[in-house]
């Protein structure tokens, strides 16, 4: 069948018309095709080929002549021609200046780290267009955060953050997280490094996660009311790949935590929870499997999968032996512990562990609102035993966060080691595609210069993280650093060392 279609009143140059005509002939089912302006010679040419040209054709119209057997081919050809003749041919990719430039649902996730007032607007726009949001930005009020999260929930979108540093969705790491193997545990975390650690430990024990849904650090504060955590709990209850849910957070508002635990009670799937700093009274009366540190939470998840008590970290004997060896190397006069942590949750977990394992140890810290230590006069100088949260605002106001650029902590490490009373330094290394490419080797020359001080480093990372977890551990051990698997283990080992040191120093 031969038919001629008109694109009325359109101008296209002759070279483009010829190019498009050739492309049309390559469409399946097309026996012949021509493309040209409605000029006399072109009309005559088409008539000569046996086409009937519409009477209302003018020289300003484009004629598309198609010879094909099937009706639907004509439609295909017309749609294709219309598209080719309308679009730019550059293949230049679209430029976006903000979410307004995006089509509905054009992306799965909009990741936001621009200043607060603008971040809020863009997040709402993204939700209106049916896209999930991950927000690293933190300068948004708690009330605004609450309203934003309610809006996201009511539109069925994920709202990860504000103040979220870690996420893992569909196998993709958001911001500072780690790539972790796929498995049956779904993690919902108000603590970034905490969720990351739990996920990485689960991977280390041979399993994996469906996702890490970061809620941002303030989700469980009263004005926010746990909206994201509860929405995510519902979501993971629906998610067919998630068999076990794990909630990770620091201790937060009592009422909000209660609500969260009550919601968890309504689920069919088992829930493990770690609210760092909580005592057993928090979990009492609820279905959740309550745990008290990150390693324990990871182990509890794995136990639900395998039904066995998994093995990770040092045994008590191994720890004691190692602690003895360390103390033996320390000269008299070496007295103090210095911890320098990038993960706020790691710092908190360590402080808690020290308090539990070495209750007589007087600890100082720059962290606010902790029951386990005394506030340092200045964050710039350690006193006695000190545990520094170098991710705290005091430090990040002056320099990039250590997780992105280790420089600040390298200087602090050097500073601690130059103090003749420092016996033991503990640090946490965090891996992941979005953080410093080389987070560890910068400490090693310094460690090598100071065999008289013990350095313990815990590594939080997945086996697929680009920095190469095993390679890093090996290099650190070769430099004389003691490498452990988790922040909890680091704190256990360090408190064991400090107890023995204390005992020796008093002999």
């Amino acid at each position, binding site marked *: 069948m031969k038919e001629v279609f008109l694109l009325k009143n359109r101008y296209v140059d002759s070279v483009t018309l010829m190019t498009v005509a050739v492309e049309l002939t390559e469409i399946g089912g097309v026996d012949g095709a021509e493309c040209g302006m409605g000029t006399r010679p072109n009309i005559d040419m088409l008539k000569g080929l046996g086409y009937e040209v519409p009477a209302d054709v003018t020289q300003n119209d484009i004629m598309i002549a198609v010879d094909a057997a099937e009706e639907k081919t004509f439609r295909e050809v017309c749609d294709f021609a219309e598209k080719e003749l309308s679009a730019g041919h550059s293949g230049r990719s679209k430029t976006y200046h903000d979410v307004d430039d995006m089509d509905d649902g054009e992306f799965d996730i*909009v990741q936001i*780290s621009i200043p607060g007032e603008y971040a809020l607007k863009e997040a709402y726009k993204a939700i209106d267009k049916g896209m999930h949001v991950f927000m690293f930005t933190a300068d948004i009020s708690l009330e605004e955060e609450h309203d934003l999260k309610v809006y996201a929930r009511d539109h069925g979108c994920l709202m990860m953050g504000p103040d979220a540093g870690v996420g893992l969705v569909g196998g993709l790491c958001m911001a500072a997280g780690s790539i972790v193997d796929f498995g049956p545990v779904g993690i919902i975390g108000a603590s970034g490094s905490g969720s990351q650690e739990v996920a990485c430990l689960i991977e280390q024990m041979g399993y994996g996660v*469906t996702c890490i849904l970061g809620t941002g650090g303030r989700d469980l504060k009263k004005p926010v009311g746990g909206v994201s955590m509860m929405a995510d709990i519902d979501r993971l209850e629906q998610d067919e*790949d998630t068999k076990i849910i794990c909630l990770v957070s620091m201790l937060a508002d009592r009422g909000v935590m209660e609500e969260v635990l009550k919601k968890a009670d309504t689920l069919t799937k088992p829930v493990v929870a770690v609210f760092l700093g909580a005592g057993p009274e928090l979990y009492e009366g609820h279905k959740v499997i309550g745990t008290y540190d990150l390693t324990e939470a990871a182990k509890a998840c794995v136990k639900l999968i395998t039904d066995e008590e998994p093995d990770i970290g040092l045994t008590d004997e191994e720890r004691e032996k190692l602690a003895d060896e360390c103390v033996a190397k320390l000269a008299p006069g070496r007295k103090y512990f210095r911890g320098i942590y990038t993960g706020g949750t790691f710092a908190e977990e360590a402080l808690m562990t020290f308090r539990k394992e070495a209750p007589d140890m007087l600890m100082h810290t720059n962290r606010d609102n902790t029951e386990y230590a005394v506030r340092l006069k200045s964050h710039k100088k350690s006193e006695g035993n000190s545990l520094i949260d170098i991710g705290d605002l005091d430090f990040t106001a002056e320099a990039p966060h250590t997780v992105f650029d280790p420089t600040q902590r390298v200087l602090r490490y050097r500073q601690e080691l130059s103090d003749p009373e420092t016996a033991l330094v503990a640090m946490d290394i965090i891996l992941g*595609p979005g953080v410093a490419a080389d987070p560890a080797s910068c400490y090693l020359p310094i460690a090598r210069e100071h065999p008289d001080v013990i350095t313990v480093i815990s590594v939080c990372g997945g086996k697929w993280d680009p920095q190469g977890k095993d390679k890093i551990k090996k290099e650190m051990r070769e430099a004389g650093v003691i490498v452990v698997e988790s922040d909890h283990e680091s704190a256990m080992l360090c408190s064991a060392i400090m107890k023995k040191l204390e005992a020796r120093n008093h002999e």
Partner: protein
Amino acid sequence: MNDINEKRPAAVKPLPKEIPSVANLGIMMFYDALVTQGSKCVQVEWVPPVKQSAEITELLDEFL
């Protein structure tokens, strides 16, 4: 006014099961990380918008 319909939440959008596509507004390092992980992603060329009067900002919120 149908109250029931107002309160019913929209269908929960499913969790992406494959590497999701991402539009990144802000820190370039995060965009680089998305690229290396193989996400179909774009770096949004965001600049702080022009400071408008409060009145104009409100009108734009209402009509744009």
